């Protein structure tokens, strides 16, 4: 499972990176989203998979999956949400103010 997860994460990273390298701002944001999914899955995978029950006491399980990565991912998800929201709004503001969402046209070296 870990191996296949690693490959999946790799693919997610590949796709995300490709999207980030394109010119359109929206694609870039989507790319960061995909990468963050990849990161979250990676943290989970790195914590070890399926080695026990869910980290809730008082149920049937006696062993638990690694709970620390889960807490980390939770934090990461929320932070990522915050950043994505800001980024999204910024990008549409950029589009509305500057009239383009093409990163190639946002070079800004012309004013030298």
């Amino acid at each position: 499972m870990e191996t296949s997860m690693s490959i999946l994460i790799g693919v997610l990273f590949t796709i995300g990176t490709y999207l980030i390298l394109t010119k359109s701002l929206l694609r870039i944001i989507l790319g960061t989203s995909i990468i963050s999914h990849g990161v979250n899955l990676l943290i989970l995978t790195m914590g070890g998979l399926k080695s026990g029950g869910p980290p809730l006491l008082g149920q049937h399980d006696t062993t638990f999956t690694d709970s620390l990565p889960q807490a980390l991912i939770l934090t990461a998800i929320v932070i990522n949400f915050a950043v994505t929201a800001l980024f999204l709004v910024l990008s549409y503001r950029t589009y509305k103010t500057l009239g383009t969402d093409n990163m190639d046209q946002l070079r800004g070296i012309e004013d030298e």
Partner: protein
Amino acid sequence: MSWLHLMIFIPFVFAIFVPFVYKWFSGRVHTGWFVLAAPLAVFLYLLKYIPSISKGETIRLELPWMPSLGINYTAYIDGLSLIFGLLITGVGALVVLYSIYYMSKEREALHNFYVYMLLFMGAMLGLVISDNILVLYVFWELTSISSFLLIAYWYQRKNSRNGAQKSMLITIFGGLAMLAGMIMLSMMADTYSIREMLGHTNRISEHLLFFPAMILILLGAFTKSAQFPFSIWLPDAMEAPTPISAYLHSATMVKAGIYLVARFTPVFGGTSEWFWIVSCIGLITLMYGSVNAVNQKDLKGLLAYSTISQLGLIMSLLGIGSASLYFGYGEESTVYAFAVLAALFHLINHSTFKGSLFMIVGIIDHETGTRDIRKLGGLMSLMPISFTLTIIGSFAMAGLPPFNGFLSKEMFFTGVLTVFESPVFGIKSIGLLFPIIAWVASVFTFIYCMILVFKTFMGKYRPERLDKEAHEAPIGMLLPPIILSCLVIVIFFFPNIVSDHLLQPALTAVLPQFAGAGGIEVNITPWHGWSTELFMTIGVVGFGVLMYRSLKKWSRLYGYFPQALTLNGIYNHLLAGMERISLKLTKQYMTGFVRDYLVYIFTFMIFLLGWSLWLSNDLSFDLSNNAPIHLYEAGVILAMLIAALTVLFSKSRFTAIIAVGALGYLVSLFFVIFRAPDLALTQLVVETVTAALFLLCFYHLPELRKERSSIPFKFTNLLVSLGVGTIVTLLALSANNHRLFESISSYFEDSYTLAGAKNIVNAILVDFRGLDTMLEILVLCIAGLGVYTLIKLQLAGRDKK
């Protein structure tokens, strides 16, 4: 804080008060009178050291600065420091006096002028008196900076600014090299004190860094002393007001390099490298300066090149004299030591006659409004005193009796002949080159001295070419050069007073092996028989007169030298080239296109991590400790791949966003499969809210366009992204099989007893790692506010553009 330290800081203290004095009294009294007190006081104070120093004593006083680092301002006075100290303050006082008449109190920004001047004076004093090399370096850079300010005193002029910049770049470059050398030296000797270094000369000379350190320190000295090929800053520095030129280039700034070489001779001297480098560079400079001086049209330019040449002379003497250390104490050692004595003697002489010459040129400039040799002429009758003084100065420079220059010039010839007569460091026949170069250079020296005197004062007076009606200068202005000229003559007749009280102690400072013996026996006399030296001088005069006569005929040769190959040309070329190349390169990679930056970053990451992984041999693919994979899980993975690829290939943003949503949902299914209920919940909500956000923003965003980019562009992107994916996967696989330790999270499984919570993840979030959560909601809150401000505050419409 001793009296000595106080004296050194006097110029700085004065510098602080000058602006106030200027503000309060500027209308009535020339600020210079106030300033004059500083160098005069210090000069008089330093005079009192002469008796004790001439007895061979030294004074060492410590003022703590950074004692815990071993960096203290240790003031150390021996003969060498004393000579320099007296020159700095003595000439300084005269220059200030001169400037009072030269600089108009109505027109000039005197407060700036005197502040720079005092700063410079203080820095020079500090430089020659400090024993700690780092402190020495501090003062060294301070002289560079204050001379930068002085040269650019008329900052409105482009030439002043350029000259200042040039001198700053070159001298600070040298300073930095010197710093590197000094750091090496301090590493070798394990101390910052020059005095203590002398105790470890053996250790230093055997060290691997000995040679680099020597070169670097010499770089510092050579740049400061305008030695070839760093001499170019000096002529340009003539843009400064003449009092400054007189001060900087006769007694102070340029002598700092000489001081440094002399000071470090005991450390580095006695080796063939030191001997060759110092003496050869000195001779080349001597030649270069004197040859170029002849071709100058500007009087100050002529003096500038003559300064370069004279400094070369002193430098070469110091180089030759260093051989004395090789011999230890003995016959040959004494012979070479004589060269050092000559160097020191010429140093003093040069200060006197060059100072006076600069001042006179200033007077000419002041009274006629020009310094151009082609416009001047026939001033002899109009400015008789100046004429007399010029003759004294020039003939001293040319090495004619009865002026002090003659004595030191003879001693110089003795020095170069020594190399030929008693060879050292495997010189053999090359030694003959030394006297030959010296002689040829002296001929040129003679020629430019003649130019200085005769082109200016003889010939036809052509008032129509001058800006002002020429007449003699006021007495106050003439007084300083008169004093200096008197010295020139006095020293000729009583050289041994100088020798006994100043030169001998300084000699023992440069060549410490003579310290115990109380110096060497010398008796400087104007007449010592029909020696080779005398014949050389006569030859110089004879040949010089001939050459001067035929000056017009051969001076055209100068024109043939290509401009691009001159040192100035090379310097300008280098500077412009550096800017050009920098701009080109920087623009090349700083495209402003964020994709390019990301490509660099990712490429760097791929290569660095790939290299490191490859190096480590820790790549491992071990499936044995994997958790089992079920069919449906494979299905989910497949579904995720499809969703991700859909995002990649979708042409409509709507599809893309739905695919991302689906991806998020599937990720949360994974969270369920991997037993992370909290995560699954959060992921679901966040995913939905994010999707809603996207939809909200779609109203303001354009539809996705088809990517219009070239094939190489896409190919690069593909390659980079594949690389990133591969690296991530490889690392994940390796890390997965490389679990060296048990995770700390088993501790949290006690969460019920520890924190009273059955949900371990929640317990971690609010309790064990509550700080994370606290900051995380802060992040969230900031983002919310940020979104709000982004939307509400739009100054874009009010842009200036």
